[in-house]
């Protein structure tokens, strides 16, 4: 290239947005080189293990750890009595990490050991003697609200770590509960009595949603170390490092500044790492006592026993419509099985009520939840956060209402679906809304209407294999959720002398591909290839604050934050270039590693050269910027009203099944999805999210079942829990509706949770289309389907909880 040619070099426009960009961390992961928490070992490290309750509900009469302490290789053995400053943990601060005086579930932590090896620690656990006095067990949430039910949390927790027998003058950390109600949620808009009076059809049904759990392929674990000055270093798989840093500090009674959390790559999250669990605090206690690093890893059985679950829900829905297909009202009562303690599962009504109030236009809505204590495993947050349960009920009733007025289910939905510009009774404002297009697209691509009619006509025809098609739609937050004082994310961006970018973001990577998407967004602003970006996202001592990975918020919130930092860097670069070449900076742009003339694409200077010129001069400068993005959403008021997210995601899924009426076996044949994602940023990544979500929803609907009988988990292993395997997956056809959200990064909205939400509801509708039989209880195992087909399923009914 001659000098003249180089000078007039034209840089063609290029964009990474919407392309299939491979995940940046994939080569390391596919080579087995990625070091997960399980693969990290610190010199001098001890191994921690926890003794769990051998009973479901009992008083602890005595604990004898002397034999365990005497075992060679054992460094530390602790019980609640050894930790006088234990503070209650969890969303309602209703339990100690190490239980004192009383155990309330099978998983309860009683003692812990730190030893030279895992084997020694396990052997030591077996030497700990505990005497119990059994108490009656509450195994069903319905029993927890009976007037004579035994109380699960009768006594107060002292702030000094005592429980049951408080000393005089002890300040109270959790005062105990006079009943078994952990949390109540009551929401209303309009007047349901009026809505019911205006209805031509009213339906009331009870739905029962079961226990499932995350089954992250990497088991839970942590490494904790205190340095000589008492500073804490934690290797943790938390999804919310900054909130947890503060919380851990509270539990350790130290300044949060003393806590540093490093997040190694995570072997699956799905919401499971959103709360602090007892094992993490216990690991810290062990490390503090041992003055050595302590590593704690679960076994798979322990992962089942001691991980949070999706919230099991008993739900009675009453809803109505007019003959013309207009929805009139919805009244919902749910009973949430909270388990023995309160984690995020109790707060799923935040999301559930949004679906009831706002997925379709409902003029009158009344919603009540009681989350009650039982002696079952306690429920946490799980991808979809209550929305799978809510959608299961709503979308079945949509079909049933349509059927009772003789209207096509598709037409019925279109008539009541939300549009852009609407503000719902709950105060949610839909600025971008591709809902109707989702319904239309999924229906067209699956030939829904034709197949629906054909299958219905075939219900009574000869033959044992019946085909069915069903649809369900969803609404979920897609622009963060203002739950905490801030819903923001910080970014620090620096450029080196060769025009490489280091993107330091508060947003955690949990396998979803955020580092790749954030890099794409930065490259789009700075005109650089993805290979120019290094992402730092895993160390609270380095990264700026972020509220954490939850509520499908990372692409939207961290994306806007990264764009903000990149725009500031770009402005500085263009100002420097403009001055140097005496061109107004408005006429300049960045593309392909060059500063270019915006109109012609003509290269002005190589970006790396410009950056070096800026750096190596008398008034030396670097390009380094920061940005904090806070979404323009608001906190809900006390009545749960308010525009809590900056954008909302929509989706419709159509499920096709084959029901074998002789065996009750249901084959999932095909899923057609249409998702309003705002805009596709990384096609490869977003397809992966949707497909993974569909199959997770398939598991929820058909195979997965964590069997809890009177507080006892019967199947804490993969063999009996039954995750979906490769041969069982359906054909998947996924379409994206690009509604180009005005606030979203490049128009995008969050999609992480969306794809798992509709599956169970759509599957129920498909089975009904195939057989004429409605299933109100998950999962749709062959036994359940067979019984229902043979009229052996008694009608579920749960008497609605009366709001006080």
């Amino acid at each position, binding site marked *: 290239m001659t000098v003249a040619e180089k000078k007039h070099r034209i840089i063609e426009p290029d964009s990474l947005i919407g392309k299939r960009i491979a995940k940046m961390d994939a080569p390391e992961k*596919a*080579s*087995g080189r990625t*070091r997960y928490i399980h693969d990290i070992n610190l010199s001098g490290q001890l191994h921690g293990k926890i003794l769990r309750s051998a009973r479901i509900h009992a008083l602890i009469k005595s604990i004898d750890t002397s034999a365990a302490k005497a075992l060679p290789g054992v460094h530390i053995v602790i019980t609640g009595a050894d930790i006088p400053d234990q503070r209650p943990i969890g969303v309602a601060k209703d339990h100690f990490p190490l239980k004192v005086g009383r155990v309330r579930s099978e998983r309860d932590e009683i003692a812990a050991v730190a030893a030279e090896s895992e084997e020694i620690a396990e052997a030591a656990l077996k030497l700990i003697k505990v005497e119990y006095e059994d108490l009656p067990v509450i195994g069903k949430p319905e029993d927890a609200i009976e007037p004579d039910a035994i109380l699960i949390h009768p006594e107060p927790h002292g702030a000094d770590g005592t429980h049951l027998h408080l000393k005089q003058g002890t300040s109270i950390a959790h005062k105990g509960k006079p009943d078994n109600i952990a949390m109540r949620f009551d929401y209303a808009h309009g007047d349901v009595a009026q809505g019911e009076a205006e209805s031509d059809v009213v339906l009331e049904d009870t739905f029962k949603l079961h226990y499932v759990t995350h089954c992250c392929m990497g088991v839970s674990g942590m490494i904790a170390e205190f340095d000589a000055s008492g500073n804490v270093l934690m290797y943790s798989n938390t999804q919310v490092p900054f909130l947890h840093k503060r919380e851990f500090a509270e539990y350790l009674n130290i300044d949060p500044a003393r806590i540093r959390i490093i997040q190694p790559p995570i072997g699956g999250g799905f919401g499971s790492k959103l709360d602090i669990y007892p094992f993490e605090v216990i690991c810290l206690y062990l490390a503090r006592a041992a003055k050595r690093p302590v590593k704690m890893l679960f076994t798979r059985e322990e992962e089942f026993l001691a991980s949070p679950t999706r919230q099991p829900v008993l739900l009675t829905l009453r809803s109505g419509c007019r003959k013309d297909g207009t929805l009139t009202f919805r009244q919902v009562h749910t009973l949430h099985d909270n388990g023995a303690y309160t984690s995020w599962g109790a707060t799923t009504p935040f999301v559930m009520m949004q679906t009831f109030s706002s997925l379709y236009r409902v003029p009158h809505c009344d919603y009540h939840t009681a989350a009650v204590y039982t002696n079952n495993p306690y429920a946490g947050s799980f991808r979809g956060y209550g929305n799978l349960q809510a959608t299961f009920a709503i979308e079945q009733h949509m079909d049933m209402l349509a059927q009772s007025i003789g209207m096509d289910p598709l037409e019925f939905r279109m008539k009541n679906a939300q549009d852009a510009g609407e503000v719902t009774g709950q105060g949610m404002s839909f600025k971008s809304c591709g809902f109707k297009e989702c319904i239309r697209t999924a229906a067209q691509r699956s030939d829904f209407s034709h197949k629906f009619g054909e299958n219905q006509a075939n219900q009574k025809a000869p033959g044992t294999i019946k085909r069915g098609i069903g649809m369900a739609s969803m609404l979920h937050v897609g622009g963060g959720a203002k739950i905490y004082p801030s819903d923001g994310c910080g970014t620090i961006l620096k450029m080196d002398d060769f025009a490489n970018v280091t993107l330091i973001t508060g947003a955690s990577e949990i396998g979803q591909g955020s580092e790749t998407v954030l890099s794409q967004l930065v490259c789009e602003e700075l005109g650089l290839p993805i290979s120019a970006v290094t992402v730092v996202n895993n160390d609270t001592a380095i990264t700026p604050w972020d509220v954490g990975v939850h509520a499908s918020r990372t692409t939207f919130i961290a994306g806007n934050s990264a764009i903000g930092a990149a725009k500031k860097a770009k402005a500085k670069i263009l100002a420097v270039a403009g001055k140097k070449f005496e061109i107004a900076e408005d006429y300049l742009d960045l593309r392909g590693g060059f500063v270019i003339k915006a109109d012609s694409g003509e290269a002005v200077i190589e970006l790396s050269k410009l950056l070096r010129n800026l750096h190596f001069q008398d008034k030396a400068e670097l390009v380094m910027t920061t940005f904090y993005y806070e979404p323009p959403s608001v906190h809900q008021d006390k009545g749960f009203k308010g525009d809590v997210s900056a954008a909302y995601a929509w989706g419709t899924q159509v499920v096709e099944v084959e029901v074998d009426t002789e065996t009750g076996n249901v084959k999932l044949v095909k899923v057609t999805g249409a998702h309003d994602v705002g805009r596709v940023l990384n096609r490869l990544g977003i397809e992966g999210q949707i497909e*993974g979500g569909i*199959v997770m929803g398939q598991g929820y609907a058909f195979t997965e079942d964590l069997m809890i009988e009177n507080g006892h988990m019967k199947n804490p*292993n993969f063999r009996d829990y039954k995750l*979906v395997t490769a*041969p069982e997956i359906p054909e998947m056809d996924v379409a994206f509706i690009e509604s180009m959200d005005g606030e979203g990064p490049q128009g995008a909205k969050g999609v992480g949770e969306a794809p798992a939400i509709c599956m169970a509801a759509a599957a129920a509708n498909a089975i009904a289309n195939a057989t004429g039989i409605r299933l109100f209880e998950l999962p749709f195992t062959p036994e359940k389907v067979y019984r229902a087909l043979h009229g052996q399923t008694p009608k579920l009914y749960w008497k609605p909880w009366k709001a006080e």
Partner: protein
Amino acid sequence: MSALKHDIEFTLNGVKRKLTVDVTMNALDMLRDAIGLTGTKYGCGEGECGACTIQVDGVSLNSCLMFAVDCNGRDVTTIEGLANDPRADALRDAFVEHGAVQCGFCTPGMVMQADHLLHKHGHPDEACVKRGLEGNLCRCTGYKKIVDAVVACGATE
């Protein structure tokens, strides 16, 4: 704790080595803890998830179900052992390009199983790949992109 020990000699990723192992130790713990190759993952310890898949004498198996002493005299390959194999490079590239990796925890086991499958079947079709990966669980991807990657890799050979 003083378990009976046994001396073994075997080929690991093309290199001969000697080791003294507890007779109760499984091959997974030997690889990860005694030798320090952490690419092979613990997912369940009960042969139900496939995250610990290795190849022994060219056959894929769950290393958590194999005693370390049974490696004696055998030819053992782990995910790290595929580093210099061009055929395995193509497979890894296919995983990356097809988006078959999310959290990545199941991926080494998947790659080992897929590598075995391609050796055995050459150009497996979709049904064959699904069947072949049946014993490997993945919670993130929904399997589709993993199956696509393996089918595509087989088709280009």
